[in-house]
């Protein structure tokens, strides 16, 4: 039976069919749905959200050493967090088959950079596969598990947004149960003290030679022969684009196993064709290897290494074939940037914070990153998961010494705080930073689509679990001044800011209200009640001051002609923030 699946759904299906016993991940676009789908196989697979990617990879390694087939999944920047165990797994190898999926984001649809994680395979000396579509994604997980066990190596599976989030047809198979391998204590393999690691490095280099031989033999790397005029070497989604553009007018060397590269196969292919193109998205990873062998090719001298590719870019770059396009004036089209949702608790928080003067606001990764956009404009930096607090600490130390008028407020979400914010807050307390840390606890991991986290009280597979109390946690770290507020009550929020700004020791404000999109759980219902009714504007009373508009609520529209605000009742969820900022009480509630 064939099913239309995204690449992520196909990875989950492949892992299930491959007999995977354990999987862990931290959600991150475009990788999130891999674990969400694996979680459905409750009887066969233990599937977990880990607090961060390093923890996910280490738990998967533990499961592998204990004899299970295991998988970890993360977005590209997540692998940076997990890089520490990754490089040493390159040395230790595995027991049960082990795959880590890296989901890169060319085009930065939902990321802070567009790093090409194929270099990680080479750097950490682990095998790598790259699927081009959903069928390959499924098949390669199964194949990668076999390669992993045969060569005693972790296999990195590199996907990209368009492989993860494109649907194509996949043949559904059966799960093949794989027995748990016996656990054997083996100090020469897993006890990586310097003397052990020194010997393991020798093993690693030998393993890579065997893997290169395999790379030359495996049918994951195959030739489609059409002509000797043009040859194309490509991998991943770029292969599909090349095929779309060149059709049968080129021969192809399709690379599915891309570390170590099949250099013998590449040389043979290159010798047979007159012109050789290397079609890659992002960096010239394959091209560099080819050029290092003295083989001439056309690649990044023509194809851009910034942003994602598509068939048009490949055709224009390599064949100078420009598409025929309808010409028209695009200058009048207004931008449509993403915004915080109507009723988002972050809106109240950032509205309050935006009124503070002489502050540096260090932000983090999540929906609340949008607090830095107009009209709230309440953020100075966003770098990576957890950086808000530690970056804020460093800046604060300098302000305390050289620029006394400045205050640092760091802003981080609940899930991001559990991810890597805790260590940073320890730094703040330990090194005595008089700064304000705000934890925006919206009771869920929102940006990636409503995932549970250590604070929600539920696991990925729906079990009730201990909900970590953020207030207790920060107090245990040593923060003496902690307050929890409802960010949609501006008086309460502003009073907390006044209080925190007046302190001369580290403080934490926990802004606690559920995400407007969250379906309240039983635990939530005990604490929160959604507002009833909708907000509406009394046109007679509206003076056109735009304060409600400047909350950035997408339900509020300002008519420039008659200088009045109006509220769209379809979008409004009745959070009442606009009512609190209106100076003439022109906004009132209906349908309560």
């Amino acid at each position: 039976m064939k099913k239309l699946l995204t690449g992520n759904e196909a990875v989950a299906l492949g892992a299930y069919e491959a007999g995977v016993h354990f999987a862990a991940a931290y959600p991150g676009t475009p990788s999130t749905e891999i674990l969400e789908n694996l979680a459905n196989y409750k009887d066969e697979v233990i599937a977990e959200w880990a607090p961060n990617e390093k923890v996910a990879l280490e738990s998967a390694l533990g499961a592998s050493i204990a004899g299970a087939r295991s998988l970890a999944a993360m977005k590209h920047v997540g692998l940076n967090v997990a890089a520490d165990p990754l490089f040493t797994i390159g040395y230790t190898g595995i027991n049960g088959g082990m795959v880590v999926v890296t989901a890169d984001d060319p085009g930065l649809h939902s990321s802070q950079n567009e790093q090409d994680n194929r270099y990680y395979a080479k750097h950490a000396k682990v095998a790598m596969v790259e699927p081009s579509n959903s069928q390959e994604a499924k098949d390669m997980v199964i194949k990668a598990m076999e390669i992993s066990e045969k060569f005693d190596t972790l296999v990195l599976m590199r996907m990209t947004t368009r492989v993860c989030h494109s649907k194509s047809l996949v043949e559904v198979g059966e799960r093949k149960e794989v027995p748990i391998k016996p656990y054997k204590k083996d100090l020469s393999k897993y006890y990586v003290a310097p003397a052990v690691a020194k010997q393991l490095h020798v093993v690693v280099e030998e393993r890579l030679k065997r893997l290169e031989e395999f790379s030359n033999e495996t049918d994951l790397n195959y030739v489609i022969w059409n002509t000797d005029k043009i040859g194309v070497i490509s991998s991943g989604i770029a292969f599909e684009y090349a095929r779309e553009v060149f059709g049968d007018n080129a021969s192809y060397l399709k690379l599915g196993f891309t570390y170590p590269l099949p250099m013998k196969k590449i040389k043979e292919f290159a010798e047979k064709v007159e012109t050789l193109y290397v079609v890659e998205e992002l960096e010239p990873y394959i091209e560099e290897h080819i050029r290092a062998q003295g083989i001439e090719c056309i690649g990044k001298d023509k194809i851009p290494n910034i942003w994602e590719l598509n068939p048009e870019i490949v055709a224009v770059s390599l064949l100078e074939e420009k598409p025929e396009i309808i010409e028209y004036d695009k200058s009048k089209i207004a931008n449509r940037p993403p915004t915080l949702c109507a009723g988002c608790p972050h809106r109240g928080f950032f509205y309050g914070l935006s009124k503070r003067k002489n502050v540096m606001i260090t932000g983090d990764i999540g929906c609340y990153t949008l607090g830095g956009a107009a009209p709230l404009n309440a953020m100075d930096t966003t770098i990576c998961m957890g950086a808000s607090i530690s970056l804020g600490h460093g800046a604060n130390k300098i302000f305390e010494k050289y620029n006394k008028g400045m205050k640092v407020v760091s802003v981080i979400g609940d899930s991001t705080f559990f991810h890597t914010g805790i260590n940073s807050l320890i730094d703040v307390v330990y090194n005595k930073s008089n700064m304000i840390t705000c934890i925006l606890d919206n009771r869920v991991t929102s940006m990636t689509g409503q995932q549970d986290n250590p604070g929600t009280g539920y696991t990925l597979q729906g079990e009730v679990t201990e909900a970590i109390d953020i207030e207790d946690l920060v107090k245990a770290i040593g923060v003496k001044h902690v307050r929890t507020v409802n960010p949609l009550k501006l008086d309460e929020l502003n009073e907390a800011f006044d209080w925190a700004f007046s302190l001369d020791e580290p403080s934490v404000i926990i802004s606690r209200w559920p995400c407007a999109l969250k379906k309240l759980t039983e635990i939530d219902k005990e604490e929160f009640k959604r507002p009833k009714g909708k907000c509406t504007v009394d046109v007679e009373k509206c003076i056109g001051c735009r304060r409600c508009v400047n909350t950035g609520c997408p339900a509020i529209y300002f008519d420039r002609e008659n200088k009045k605000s109006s509220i769209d009742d379809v979008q409004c969820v009745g959070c009442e923030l606009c009512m609190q900022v209106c100076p003439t009480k022109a906004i009132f509630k209906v349908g309560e």
Partner: protein
Amino acid sequence: MADTRSILLVGVGGQGTILASKILSAGLVEAGYDVKMSEIHGMAQRGGSVSTQVRFGDKVYSPIIGRGSADILVSFEAMEALRWLDHLKPDGKVVVNDYKIPSAPILLGKADYPEGVIETIKEKADTWVVDAAKIARDLGNAKVMNIVLLGALAKAMDLTDIDWEKAIRDNVKANFIDINIEAFHKGMEAIQLAYV
């Protein structure tokens, strides 16, 4: 490839373009086509401009298209049709919802909603204008606007032989099946009426 047809569905995050594309793809698969569909998740969804691409034929390679490549552009919002019009083939068709959602800069009074959007599109391409919002509201649920447009698309693309009711039944919650099927038929009718 030459026989592959490309559909571009565009709109605003939250308008249900992904569900419409899901039903569309399911119907096409059922009809025996090779299908690829590409969608965007995450940050871009939050009220931003969104696009979904569905390609079908005997054998489909790329899941996405560049400019000048779509056989049909279905826009769930008027200004978005203009934003994506350059992705349409010069002889391609447009189904546009006569519905405006002001974007953040417009809400803030920093930009104007462009005038004459639909007229411009009509000048440039073979266009059907559908008042999907009104049709959906008349059916009693503004949210089924996406399925009205899906019906319009099926008619405009001459894909009426496919068992769309099954595709809808398989992809929407039980108590919304009837209204969605009705919405689909109203969408097809809207195209028929436009022909007259």
